[in-house]
C-alpha cells in the first residue's frame, strides 16, 4: 500500500486555476445540494429519506475531475456527491428526489437510484456493494471492445464486508481491467464503527489479489485528484485495476433521520472533522492564499450556487408528477405497458 502522506500544501500551478476553481465549485455544489435536500426532508416535503454525502465532497470531486464523460462510475446509496461531481444538473436531481416526471429516472428511482447516462453515471445502488460487479463489468466491456474508458467503482468501508468485492477484484486483477475501486472510508458502516466490522487493513484486501492499493486523505481534494489523475491515466494504458482507500468523514448520520447518534459517535468527533478537516474550508483557504481567487469572488460563487439550488428546488416542487399511466412503463424495453399484456 502506498500512503499519500499529508504533504505541505502544494504551490498552485497558475495554468490550472480554472480546474482548481471548478473543483471548489463542485464541492460547494454538492454541499449546497445536500443542504437543500436535508431541508426538504426536515420540512416533510420529500418522500422517503436520503443519505447525505456532506463531508466527503473531496472524494467524489477529486476523482470525477480526473474522468471524462465517456468514463463510467457506479455510485452508492450515498450517491448525490458522485452524481453532481460527474456532471449532473440540480433540476433533474431535485425532480428525482421529489419523484417528479422530469427527474433523471422519471421519478422511478429516487435518491438511491439516480443514474445519469449522459455523463457516464451508471447509477446509485441501494444494495450495499451492489454495484461492484456492474463497475467491473463495464471495465470488462471496455477491454473486450478495445475502448479506452475507465470505470470508477465508489463504495464505502461497510461494503468491504460484501463477498462480491473479492470475487470481482479477483477477476479484475486476472484480466487487468480498467477499473478503480474507490473505497470511501468514512469510519462508519451505517451505525457501527468500521473497526468493529473490518478485520485487518482495507488496502491489504486488494493487495492480496496483486492490485496496487493506495491510501489518501479524502478531505484534501488536490491530493485525491493528483492520485486519481495518475491512476486513471495508468488504467487507460491497461495497467489497472487499482484500489484507493480514501479517509473521509460523513457529517450526517447514516441517513437524514439518524439524528440521535451519540451511541455510536460523539459530537466532539464530528465537530473536530467539521472544523479541522473540512475539504471546502481547506480548499477555500488555499485558493485565497495562493491568489487564485479573492474572498469576494468565492462569496459570489457560493451565493450563485445557493441561488441555483434554491431555484432548482422551487422548479422541482412545481414540476408535475409522472402520469399514473407510467407506473408499468419501463419494465421492459419493448413493451409500453407491462401489465397490459394479455389483460
Amino acid at each position, binding site marked *: 500500500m502506498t500512503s499519500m502522506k499529508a504533504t505541505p500544501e502544494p504551490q498552485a500551478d497558475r495554468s490550472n486555476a480554472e480546474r482548481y476553481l471548478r473543483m471548489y465549485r463542485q464541492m460547494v455544489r454538492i454541499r449546497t445540494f445536500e443542504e437543500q435536500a436535508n431541508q426538504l426532508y426536515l420540512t416533510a416535503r420529500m418522500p422517503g429519506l436520503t443519505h447525505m454525502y456532506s463531508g466527503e465532497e473531496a472524494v467524489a470531486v477529486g476523482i470525477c475531475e480526473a474522468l471524462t464523460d465517456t468514463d463510467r462510475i457506479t455510485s452508492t446509496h450515498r450517491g448525490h456527491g458522485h452524481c453532481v461531481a460527474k456532471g449532473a444538473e440540480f433540476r433533474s436531481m431535485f425532480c428525482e428526489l421529489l419523484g417528479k416526471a422530469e427527474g433523471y*429516472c422519471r421519478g422511478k428511482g429516487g435518491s438511491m437510484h439516480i443514474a445519469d447516462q449522459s455523463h457516464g453515471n451508471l447509477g446509485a445502488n441501494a444494495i450495499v456493494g451492489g454495484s461492484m460487479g456492474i463497475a*467491473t463489468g463495464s471495465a470488462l466491456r471496455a477491454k473486450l471492445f478495445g475502448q479506452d474508458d475507465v470505470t470508477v467503482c465508489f463504495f464505502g468501508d461497510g461494503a468491504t464486508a460484501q463477498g462480491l468485492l473479492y470475487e470481482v477484484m479477483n477477476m479484475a486483477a486476472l484480466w487487468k481491467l480498467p477499473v478503480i475501486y474507490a473505497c470511501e472510508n468514512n469510519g462508519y458502516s451505517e451505525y457501527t464503527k468500521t473497526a468493529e466490522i473490518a478485520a485487518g487493513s482495507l488496502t491489504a484486501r486488494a493487495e492480496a489479489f496483486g492490485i496496487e492499493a493506495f491510501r489518501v486523505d479524502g478531505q484534501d481534494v488536490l491530493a485525491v485528484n493528483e492520485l486519481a489523475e495518475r491512476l486513471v491515466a495508468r488504467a487507460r494504458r491497461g495497467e489497472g485495476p487499482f484500489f484507493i482507500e480514501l479517509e473521509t468523514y460523513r457529517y450526517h448520520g447514516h441517513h437524514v433521520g439518524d439524528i440521535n447518534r451519540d451511541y455510536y459517535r460523539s459530537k466532539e468527533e464530528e465537530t473536530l472533522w467539521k472544523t479541522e478537516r473540512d475539504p471546502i474550508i481547506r480548499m477555500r483557504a488555499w485558493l485565497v492564499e495562493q491568489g487564485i481567487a479573492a474572498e469576494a469572488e468565492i462569496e459570489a460563487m457560493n451565493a450563485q450556487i445557493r441561488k441555483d439550488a434554491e431555484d432548482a428546488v422551487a422548479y422541482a416542487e412545481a414540476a408535475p408528477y409522472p402520469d399514473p399511466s407510467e407506473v408499468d412503463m419501463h419494465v421492459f424495453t419493448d413493451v409500453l405497458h407491462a401489465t397490459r399484456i394479455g389483460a
Partner: protein
Amino acid sequence: MREITLSQAVNEALAEEMRRDPSVFILGEDVAEAGTPFKVLSGLVQEFGKDRVIDTPISEPGFMGLAVGAAMTGARPVVDIMFGDFLFLIMDQLCNQAAKTHYMSGGKLNVPLVVRTNLGATRRSAAQHSQSLQALVAHIPGLKVALPSSAYEAKGLLKTAIRDNNPVVIFEDKLMYQDKAPVPEEEYLIPFGQANVKREGRDITLIATSSMVQVAMKAAEALASSGISAEVIDPRTIVPLDEATLLASVKKTSRAIVIDEGHQSYGVTAEIASRLNEKAFYHLDAPVLRMGAMDVPVPFSPVLEDLTVPTPDRVAEAARRLCAGEMIHAA
C-alpha cells in the same frame, strides 16, 4: 429435415449470433476448452477465442455482476450458470440489479443479457443439482423467461433471447441435451410470447413446459387410445405468456391440466391455472389441475426421485378422472 441434438442446437444458436454481432460474448465456469460439463459449448472457443468465450473463476455472483455492467454499457453477454440450482447464488445481481435497472433508470439504461441455465430432475443428482427454478425468476418483473422443449425451440428461442434488449433467463432441460429433433438448416427465430399448439384436441388441454411437453405428448397418446382427445400446448415463454392461445384452447376443451417441473406450490402451474380460472371460469367443466414437482427437496435414491415428478401415466390418469367428472384435488 436434418435432426440435431438440443446441445448442438444451443451451440449453433450461439455461434450464429456471435458471428452476426461482435458484442455477444459468453461468460461462465468452464465454458471455453471444457465446453461446460455437458459439452454444450464445445468448439466455440476455437472459433471465437478466449476473449469471447471467457472462463471465469467459480464466482457466480461476481461474473453475473460483470455481465450486468457489460450489458449496461453496450455488450450482450450470455452468462452460463452451470446448474439451475446456482441461480440462488446470483439472485441479487439478477433480480435486484439486472431486472430493475431499466425501470429504476426511467428507461434510460438497458440490460441486454441472457442467463443460460438448466432444469430437470431424475438425473440422480440430488437436491442441489436437480431443481427447476423458473417460477423464482418469472416472479420478478423485468425478467423474461424462456423454456425450450426441444432442439428446435432451444435454437430459435436462444437466438431471440440474445437479440432481446432485456435480461432473459433461458432454462434448458439437462436431460434433453442429447435428444434430437428436426431443426432447419436456414436461420429462424422463435418470437417470445407465442405458444405452440403441439397437438390439437377437443376434450382437455394439457399445458406443459420444457421437459413436461414430452410427458404431456405421451399422456395425450395414451388418452387417445381410451377415446379422450387431448390438446397439448407449449407456452415456450412464461414471461411473456401467450394467454390468448391458452384461453382459446381451454374455452374450446373446457378442461385443463398445467404441467411444469418446478415445485407445485406457488409455482408456474399455479400462476397459469389461476389465470385460466379468472379468465375462462364460465367455460370450465372441471377444476384446472396443477401438476408440478412434489414439494420436497429432490431426493437422491432413484426409487424416491421418480415419485417427485409428473409422469405420462400420472398425467393421463388425472386427465381421465377430470374428463369423467370426478372432483379431484391437485395432489
